[in-house]
């Protein structure tokens, strides 16, 4: 067994209230492409950041060639031969392509001045090997995201790297660029470089990786060779669910909404596409129905919700609410049409912690409650009172600062804000993430009640149990496309995992069948 080039021993990292890494053992060998996978919050990003010197560990150690080597800064890690390509392109868009490629190691000529001619020549040659042909004097920001990612890759690999860490390098690449990337990875492997590869796309892992480590809730749950490891088993390890007896049953019959749902859909989404992110996503939600969006992280769930709510501009597709077409790409238009989105990250996209509960709730409806620019305090009070009671928001008074509330109650305040706008469709993106069990149950109960009141609800959740129990139907996404729909008795965890894990060979059949069925179902209504 070859020596690990880079490994960790019992690595532990704590953040306030969270144990992000819990005694993680991880190791990658020279000439090995090692996949690092896990769901959101599993600790992948934290592990990478500790490995590359961005975070300091709270316990355990990082080993380089078997010797202790915990890095204090990204620079120290780079000097130890560890290069990183981050998920977001971490280059300077205003600087030229060549200057980005060479920053910190520019060729110098006379008087120590930078030799730009040589730098530009070298840049062109290096980049051409990554399929990037461009004027290297132009600002980097003028390149497409994929090309920028290639520049980042070229930069990372070009130093004398012994270990290259790639954090979801393909998330912004075209299929052709992915092929180029795979070519680069294979050549790196042949040269004896160790590659740590983080991705959610299972097909990619099987295409390029030799070994895999699965993280869940900050712990290593599996590590070993990838070959011979079943796709379904991989998914079940990531999600922490047993495969059960379903495996024996084979392929499921996806699609086909056979239930007699009589009501006209309140939300209909047709052929929604967002460059690199969503491909022809279609589904419908009827009043009183909770439709779940299933899929792994990065499958396009959040993007779907955001483009329906106007926060993300789709390149194609149509959104209709109760038969009326909604202008896409405009949050204002979506809100006026009755679409409300409870975003995934409530801290940055929702709650104003310094304002009171009352003000937070009233924020979105102020224009509706005001007459001639003056806001009626009494009307706000009655509205806030109604919602605080209905949603069982626990605060000392409506005037308590929202930032002082528990996570669950903050989430309810946000929910109240959107409900006050009287929506017809509610999009909930991870409504119970990060809140305690009791509050979770309350929010789940609320979702049920809201649906019973006739709202159309679209529910996104990484918590399989929540998704399965909360949803009447589940639309399954993978790599930005609908790959199936579970209805009635099919709405089970096992079925859902199978749909997510469905092998690549089945994909064309599924991708063809599922959206078509949804469209057919919608047409019949």
């Amino acid at each position, binding site marked *: 067994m070859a020596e690990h080039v880079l490994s960790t021993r019992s690595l532990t990292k704590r953040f306030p209230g969270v144990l992000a890494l819990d005694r993680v053992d991880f190791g990658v060998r020279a000439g090995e492409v090692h996949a690092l996978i896990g769901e959101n919050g599993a600790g992948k990003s934290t592990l990478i950041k500790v490995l590359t010197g*961005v975070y300091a560990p709270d316990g355990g150690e990082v080993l380089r060639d078997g010797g202790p080597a915990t890095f204090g800064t*990204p*620079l120290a890690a*780079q*000097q130890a031969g560890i290069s*990183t390509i*981050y998920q977001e392109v*971490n*280059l*300077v*868009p*205003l*600087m030229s392509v060549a*200057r980005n490629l060479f*920053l*910190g*190691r*520019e*060729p*110098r000529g006379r008087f*120590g*001045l*930078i030799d*730009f001619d*040589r730098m530009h020549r*070298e840049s062109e*040659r*290096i980049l*051409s*090997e*990554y*399929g*990037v*042909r*461009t*004027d290297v004097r*132009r600002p980097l*920001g*003028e*390149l*497409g995201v*994929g*090309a920028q990612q*290639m520049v980042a890759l*070229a*930069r990372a*690999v*070009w*130093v*004398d790297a012994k270990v290259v860490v790639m954090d979801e390098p393909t998330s912004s690449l*075209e299929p*052709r*660029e992915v092929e*180029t990337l795979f*070519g*680069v990875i294979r*050549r790196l492997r042949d*040269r004896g470089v160790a590659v740590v590869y983080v991705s959610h796309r299972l097909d990619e892992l099987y295409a390029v990786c030799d070994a895999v480590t699965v993280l869940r809730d900050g712990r290593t749950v599996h590590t070993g060779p990838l070959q011979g490891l079943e796709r379904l088993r991989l998914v079940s390890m990531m999600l922490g669910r047993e495969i059960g007896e379903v495996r024996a049953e084979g392929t499921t019959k996806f699609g086909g909404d056979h239930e007699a749902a009589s009501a006209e859909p309140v939300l209909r989404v047709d052929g929604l596409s967002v*460059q690199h992110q969503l491909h022809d996503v279609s589904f419908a939600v009827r009043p009183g129905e909770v439709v779940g969006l299933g899929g792994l992280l990065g499958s396009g769930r959040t993007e779907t919700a955001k483009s329906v709510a106007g926060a993300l501009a789709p*390149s194609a597709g149509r959104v209709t609410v109760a038969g009326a077409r909604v202008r896409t790409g405009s949050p204002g238009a979506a809100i006026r049409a009755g679409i409300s989105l409870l975003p995934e990250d409530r801290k940055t996209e929702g709650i104003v912690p310094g304002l009171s509960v009352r003000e937070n709730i009233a924020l979105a409806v102020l224009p509706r409650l005001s007459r001639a620019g003056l806001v009626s305090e009494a009307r706000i009070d009655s509205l806030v009172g109604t919602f605080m009671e209905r949603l069982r928001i626990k605060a000392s008074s409506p005037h308590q600062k929202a930032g002082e509330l528990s996570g669950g109650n903050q989430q309810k305040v946000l929910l109240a804000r959107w409900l006050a706008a009287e929506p017809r469709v509610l999009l909930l993106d991870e409504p119970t993430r990060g809140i305690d069990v009791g509050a979770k149950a309350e929010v789940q109960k609320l979702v049920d009640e809201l649906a019973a009141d006739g709202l159309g609800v679209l529910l996104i959740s990484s918590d399989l149990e929540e998704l399965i129990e909360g949803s009447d139907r589940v639309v399954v996404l993978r790599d930005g496309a609908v790959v199936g729909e579970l209805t009635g008795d099919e709405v089970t965890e096992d079925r859902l995992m199978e749909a997510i894990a469905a092998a690549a060979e089945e994909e064309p059949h599924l991708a063809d069948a599922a959206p078509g069925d949804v469209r057919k179902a919608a047409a019949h209504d």
Partner: protein
Amino acid sequence: MSVAKSRHDGGGSAPGEGGPAGPAKPAGAAAHGGTSTRADRWSTFAQRHGALVALLLTVLIASASFDSFAGAGNLKNIAVSSAFLAIVALGMTFVIVSGGIDLSVGSVFVLGGVLAAWGSKYGPVVALLLPLAVCGGIGLVNGLLIARARLAPFIVTLAAMLGARGLMLNITDEGNDTFLIAKDSLFADLGRGKLLGIGAPVWITLALFLLGGLLLRRTRFGQQVYAVGGNEDAASLMGTSVSRTKITVYAMSGLLAGLAGALNAAWLASGVTILGQGMELEAISAVVIGGTLLTGGLGYVSGSLVGVLLLKVIQNIINQIGSLDSAYQQVVSGAFLVVVVVVQTWLGRRRKARLTAPG
């Protein structure tokens, strides 16, 4: 630094070291972006040279309108009076490109002048080195507070602005003492001397801008200033020492403001205590008019020189029109600044819109 070890000295060895070995398949070789349209080139030109065009137009119109404007005496006047602001603006350019701001330069400028005049009785070396040491030190402290203590540049340099002016008032007994510089001293020659009929401050300024231009555009330090201003996190992840870069630019800014003050004192032959009010804003205006992005990451030393000249030419023209109140100079300068910032913002948005457009 092993990262800095250049791999390209051996010519062909560079990509072999890290890049893929074989040439890319022609079929897979995608042509990525980079094709610049005429509109792109125009907007780049406007960003980079708009101030120069405006300066040339202004000078042409002024020469045609006033006989006295294009005279050698008047032009030399403009040049010398521009020199001191230009030196301050040079330091400010580095600070703004790095994504910061330095509000202390006006106070540091006047402090430098007073210190030089006070020190001139101990000889030219003290007269020059004292202000450089004190003002450079103020800049260094600014830099340390901003880079290491991670305080906002606006607040830190605002405090330094108040502190430096207080120090100056302390030295001059609330501004009542004005130290004089002997007009025949060697130090006074730095401000009053002439070479080829042109004042020494002008030559010093030109030399400093040449050095500053090389430093910003052609050295690794300069590249790091751009990188820090363009994307601080990325610069740090790419192995740039962000704090060292920041400390250096603020120290430079203080040093140059002090030098400008000392030269100005030599020129006036006294440490005048009422100068420098609002000079920081004038310097910032000149830098921004010269095409440097106020948000950092993009800018040119030469542009700042043009920006200073433009401000000073406008000031001169208004003085030439005797009937116009000189207060209008500030109105015109302000209007110019607004136009430049509007155009910059517009160009920036256009670029961004183009980058995020699908396709």
